[in-house]
């Protein structure tokens, strides 16, 4: 039986709730404390992006099991916001340390093992990210 959690994001409280749900599931799946913190940070950034650019949306978090029985955690961030115009540009390695947008999506990609993005102008964005247990 797989655990699934859905968190609505429309305020900073939603961000914190998503973090909490993610950290909890990550711990239950068996991730160590550094990976727990990484997964939580990734969720936090995804939720914050929704909050800042699409105003509202959802974060879905679930356990996944690969064909080789490896366990992992999957995070899906969905919104109906303005969409991303130039995905290539957004995914370009920004300069995290210079701040502004924060870690942003390249940061999320780094923190997780798999990352994919689907976006349509004026029709929202869906980002899926997975981290596998080592």
């Amino acid at each position: 039986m797989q655990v699934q959690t859905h968190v609505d994001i429309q305020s900073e409280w939603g961000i914190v709730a998503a973090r909490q749900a993610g950290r909890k599931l990550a711990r239950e799946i068996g991730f160590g404390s550094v990976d727990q913190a990484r997964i939580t940070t990734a969720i936090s950034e995804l939720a914050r992006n929704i909050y800042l650019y699409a105003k509202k949306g959802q974060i879905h978090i679930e356990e996944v099991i690969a064909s080789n029985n490896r366990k992992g955690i999957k995070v899906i961030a969905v919104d109906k916001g303005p969409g991303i115009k130039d995905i290539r540009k957004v995914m370009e390695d920004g300069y995290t340390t210079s701040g502004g947008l924060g870690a942003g999506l390249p940061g999320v990609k780094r923190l997780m093992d798999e990352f994919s993005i689907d976006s349509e102008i004026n029709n929202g964005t869906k980002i899926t990210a997975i981290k596998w247990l080592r």
Partner: protein
Amino acid sequence: MEETRLSMYQSYKEMLTSYIKSKSEHALYSAQQFSKEMMEKDMSPEEMVSLHLSVFKEIVDELPEEVIASFDLLLEVMIGYGLAHQEHLSLRDRQRQLDSELDVAARMQKSLLPNEQIEVDAVDLGVVSVPAGKMSGDYYHYLSDEHGNIGIAVADVIGKGVPAAMCMSMIKYAMDSLPEQRLQPAALLENLNRVVARNIDSDMFITMVYGTYAPREHLFYYASAGHEPGFFYEAATNTFEDLKTKGLVLGVSPKVHYKEFSINMEPGDFIVLLSDGVTECRIHDHFLERSQISSLIGKYKHLPAQAIAENVFRELEKIQDFELKDDFTLLILRRNV
């Protein structure tokens, strides 16, 4: 700076106090935001560790002496990370400067490419050329003369980035100096080959295809120097055919003879010239087949040439996860009437 430090100290103290008391996720969220702020202010990781210790010392009375000692060691290790961090900051500055330099160079490079529309009603021309990095090792060319004759070309320097871009600009200057051969594909390649062989190291090669369309004869003449074969689309049969190619790449030997081919074009027929960045589009671990490329082009064939090229690029970009492995150039020339 002192003020910043003090306010940093205050915020971190509040967070740590609150977290030790409540263990709340909210405090951890604040800590993450705090870390961004620290980095925006270029605070290095050893300063962070030291800040942590001083706040901690103040909050907890009588911290066991070995806890404090343990931080000495951690701090010592973090100095190395601090150096790496500072190196990162200067690397970032250097990279930024280089990036803006390359942006200027890329603009210069772009200005070497044709950018006006071709004013010949008999044909419809479209082109998309996108470098994998900032600068391109692909080159394209089109030009019409006063009789409505059209010359088109695509070239690809083996190699990428700045050196390839420098070669590419040489091709442009060399083309400029050969106005007489613009309607003779084979002769043009033969002359270019001489220039390339003279100026470029023997480990640099350039492939190129050059063609001309004579609107009164409805004939497309072309020659190729080892370049990725293009396609000929025949509207009557709705089929794509490879453009025959033979010929050594430019720059290998100073004296090469190129063979010229010709194709009769009916209304609606079109020619596709491309670089291998289009055909050798890698998805995960395999390449797209050439037949997949031609069906992709076929899917948009009802559109104007420019729109075909743009749509094909958009689809291929997406399949590759928005990361081009090679410079991409796709040029389409259709006979209208």
